């Protein structure tokens, strides 16, 4: 008797459940309420999947999307600089000293062994500047000496290793003796790499000094310093490359690059 009632109850429930769905769905697929443990586990599992997808998306964002955005910004700003150079030349003001707008880039960095890009150089090393896919010269903690000033000192630069244009991504491909060329409106500054420090503390401000002693140089000179983070994809240490001015070349009508870039 009891069992038959129970059986009928079951049948009724199944029929009800089926009615809610389409008629085609088989009765055994009817929903059953899971226990609290199953519910917690299922909730936890979905959270894990969600977290995994989020982290994956963040990787896509960091290594791909920020490059897209930064390259766009860098191209726009580089065009602006090239345009203003062209206009100043057209205006017949060739003799006037170059006026540098600190908001705009001051020139382009060419490092053929690192990348084929010309890297726009702007003032400052804040994330806001560097995230536009450019290299920045230091204003803090040590003020970089601009090559255009003609003074002896250290032209210290920083750029991203990964994401945000990743302009210094290939810094490990630079070897001693390789050229680094800095292009301004009127002059090519040709540097030669003489020192590499593949790993140093991020607090090692000495590498930016006017005479960076760790590079082996002891006298004042016209130095250039590239800094970025290392190992790739992290920010644990800093990678340093030092170069020394070899010569300068006047920019001609066609902006013919110096032989190092040809």
């Amino acid at each position: 008797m009891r069992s038959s009632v129970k059986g009928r109850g079951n049948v009724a429930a199944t029929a009800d459940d089926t009615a809610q769905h389409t008629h085609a769905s088989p009765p055994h697929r009817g929903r059953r309420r899971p226990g609290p443990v199953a519910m917690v586990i299922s909730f936890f599992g979905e959270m894990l999947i969600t977290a995994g997808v989020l982290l994956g998306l963040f990787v896509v964002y960091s290594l791909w999307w920020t490059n897209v955005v930064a390259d766009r910004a860098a191209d726009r700003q580089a065009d602006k600089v090239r345009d203003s150079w062209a206009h100043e030349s057209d205006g017949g003001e060739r003799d006037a000293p170059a006026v540098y707008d600190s908001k705009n880039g001051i020139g382009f960095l060419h490092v053929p062994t690192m990348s084929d890009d010309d890297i726009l150089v702007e003032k400052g090393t804040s994330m806001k500047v560097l995230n536009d896919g450019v290299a920045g010269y230091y204003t803090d903690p040590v003020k970089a000496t601009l090559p255009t000033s003609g003074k002896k000192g250290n032209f210290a630069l920083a750029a991203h290793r990964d994401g945000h244009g990743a302009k210094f991504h290939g810094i490990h491909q630079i070897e001693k003796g390789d050229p680094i060329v800095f292009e301004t409106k009127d002059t090519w500054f040709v540097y030669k790499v003489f020192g590499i420090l593949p790993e140093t503390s991020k607090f090692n401000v000495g590498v930016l000094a006017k005479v960076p002693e760790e590079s082996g140089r002891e006298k004042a000179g016209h130095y250039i310093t590239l800094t970025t983070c290392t190992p790739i994809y992290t920010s644990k240490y800093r990678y340093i490359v030092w170069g020394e001015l070899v010569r300068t070349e006047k920019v001609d009508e066609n902006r013919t690059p110096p032989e190092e870039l040809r």
Partner: protein
Amino acid sequence: MGLVPWYDGRDGMYSWIWRHLPGNGWVKALISLVLVTAVVYVLFQYVFPWAEPLLPFNDVTVDNQ
């Protein structure tokens, strides 16, 4: 159906969302796609740029802080 809490059912919140989308399978799929795109947009445009400076992956300068 309207009374079941979001965590009810066999398999969690995503199937709950799926069940509450209107229309047939194709419409649901289309709406899901739009929702996913919207979420990714918000993440890339607002959430990740905000989160990034808080994470130690992108410091490239040397300094004394």
